[in-house]
């Protein structure tokens, strides 16, 4: 679960990490009011849950309250990568000496958390990692030891700081790690972490993604899993999530339903191989119920972009008869408004096929054959 910049910063500030002075505003008038409590110049920052906000014009600067109002009005009317900007963060602009990067994420190969620092901040860290690997410092965190104060000092030291400034930076990194573990962060970043003109450090931007699987330990966030305002999900994605379906909207023309993440991905690939373009990824998971199948089909049938729907089920825990029941219910309730190609094999296959065949629905054996046919129907 992604948190907004202002939420992440509030968490950092609470744990003692310096952040810019500022506050949230939902309207230009409110933005002006917030700014009136601050010292100019000001930063006006769109609060959206996608990266690349800066390049999209979602961060503006202002020297006067009037400019704040104008900039806020502009940003609040934007859509960034399809997401409406619902609020802006008004802050005092920081006097930058240097922009740094510090983040903690997961290292899959080493099976541990990794702390990553760079003296090149404010840009995409992956680009720095590939272009200037010598500017990246990593500490792989032994889970039995954690990220200790000496790890923080090692990093601060390698970033070129010494004396009290090194200790100050190390102190911030240590607190940051505490925030990361306390929030089950999958990714947490200060980018940029700014060295100010007077030698202090301020987290000028912050990003925090909580491990969805750990949300049961963070109930205050779990509640909003299904709230459109608080996630970057589309209406359909939230609908799917509520139904326990893994759904990702794409921009093709063949709607796809399958069971099992790998199989669904392979189905998308097969459709593309035969010249189609997947409209989505939709995994009903293992042991899907009739109701889940109904919900999955409803989502795709109402998707204007999907001209054909391809259902690819290989039953293991999933029962073919249960899937067939779902398909039949949808046929009865709303009718098929577009062509549907069905491949159905595995557990209770015969019963499922019989039910569908009796209802006049043709069922295929081979996934690849079915994919070809789905593309042919376009």
């Amino acid at each position, binding site marked *: 679960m992604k948190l907004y910049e202002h939420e992440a910063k509030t968490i950092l500030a609470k744990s003692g990490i310096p952040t810019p002075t500022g506050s949230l505003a939902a309207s230009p008038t409110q933005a002006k009011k917030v700014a009136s409590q601050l010292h100019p110049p000001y930063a006006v920052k769109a609060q959206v849950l996608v990266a690349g906000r800066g390049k999209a014009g979602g961060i503006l600067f202002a020297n006067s309250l009037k400019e704040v109002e104008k900039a806020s009005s502009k940003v609040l009317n934007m859509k960034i990568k399809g997401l409406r900007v619902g609020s802006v963060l008004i802050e005092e602009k920081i006097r930058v000496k240097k922009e740094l990067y510090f983040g903690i994420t997961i290292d*899959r190969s080493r099976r541990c958390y990794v702390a990553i620092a760079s003296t090149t901040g404010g840009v995409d860290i992956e680009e720095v990692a590939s272009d200037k690997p010598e500017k990246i410092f990593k500490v792989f965190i032994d889970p039995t030891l954690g990220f200790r104060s000496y790890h923080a000092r090692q990093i601060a030291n390698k970033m070129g700081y010494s004396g009290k400034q090194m200790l100050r930076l190390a102190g911030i990194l240590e607190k940051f790690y505490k925030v990361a573990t306390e929030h089950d962060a999958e990714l947490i970043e200060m980018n940029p972490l700014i060295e100010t003109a007077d030698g202090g450090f301020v987290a000028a931007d912050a990003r925090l993604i909580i*491990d969805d699987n*750990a949300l049961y330990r963070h109930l205050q966030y779990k509640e909003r899993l299904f709230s459109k305002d608080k996630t970057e999900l589309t209406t359909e994605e939230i609908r799917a999530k509520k139904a326990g379906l893994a759904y990702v909207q794409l921009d093709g023309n063949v709607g796809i339903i399958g069971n099992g993440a790998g*199989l669904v991905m392979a189905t998308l690939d097969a459709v593309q191989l035969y010249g189609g373009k997947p409209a989505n990824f939709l995994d009903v998971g293992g042991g899907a119920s009739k109701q889940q199948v109904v919900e999955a089909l409803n989502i795709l049938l109402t998707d204007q972009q999907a001209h054909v729907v391809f259902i690819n089920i290989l039953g293991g825990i999933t029962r073919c008869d249960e899937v067939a029941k779902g398909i039949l219910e949808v046929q009865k309730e709303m009718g098929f408004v577009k062509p549907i190609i069905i491949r159905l094999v595995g557990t209770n296959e015969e019963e499922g096929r019989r039910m569908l065949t009796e209802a006049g629905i043709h069922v295929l054996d081979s996934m*690849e054959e079915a994919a070809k046919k789905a593309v042919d129907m376009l």
Partner: protein
Amino acid sequence: MGIIVDRNTRVVVQGITGAQGNFHTRLMLDFGTQIVAGVTPGKGGVKIHGVPVYDTVEEVVLKHRANASIIFVPAPFAADAAHEAMEAGIKVVVVITEHIPIRDSIQIMAHAKQRGVTVIGPNTPGIITPGESKLGIMPAHIFKQGGVGIASRSGTLTYEIAAELTKRGLGQSTCFGLGGDPIVGLNFVDALKMFEKDIQTNAVVLIGEIGGDVEEQAAEYIATMKYPKNVVAFVAGRTAPPGKRMGHAGAIVMGKAGTAESKIAAFRNAGVKVAEKPSDIANFLHVYTPKARKLEGEGTRT
């Protein structure tokens, strides 16, 4: 033969009284897996499909000499179950449970490393050595004993491919799922090493997907070590956009990292045949693994 599990594997089912644990215990027993006991805290004393249930794994190891565990315990308690199994001396732990927090998985893997435990999963369909033992939730009938080792990052896609191989007369030595999470116990290189030593295995199928770099690591290993057995790969997710999780927590392209293109290129550079579609895999195996056909005849004792 095969790897990790065989007919001598003595299994404890952790979470045996839950719906999933109960259901799959029956299927595993039907298959012939030696399930010696189950564990559900607070339910010690009952029996499930004739299998005695205990409160702790410690007891099961003492009384039934269990040496492997399969875990169906709900996510918030699954890590604890894995630690319990490892501390009790279990050397193979198969974690079926999905949605385990990453922080918990990291701790499981650190503990496993300390004790030399093989962890399969989390979020895996499990492992099957056809004709010998199954610790998993895969439909058993699509597998048949033979010479192809399969390691996969996906469940259903593995069934798709295994069923096709079986239909085409290509039996399997051992098939297992690494697990769909970002942090799992085994990677493809581990699988390759074990299949290399297994005399039953004469070819290896690696079923990869987007996210992470276990495919790239495997490719490098195959090239560097001049891997002596035939390897065929499939990579799912060529159409996946960056930044979106494709069902599995681990199936995500981060920026330019973890794309299917990168993985396919790595395999091809290492001389590994990459199938465009699942059905190609059997074709490649038939063409490039003449020995595979020989052993199939033996693969019928299932």
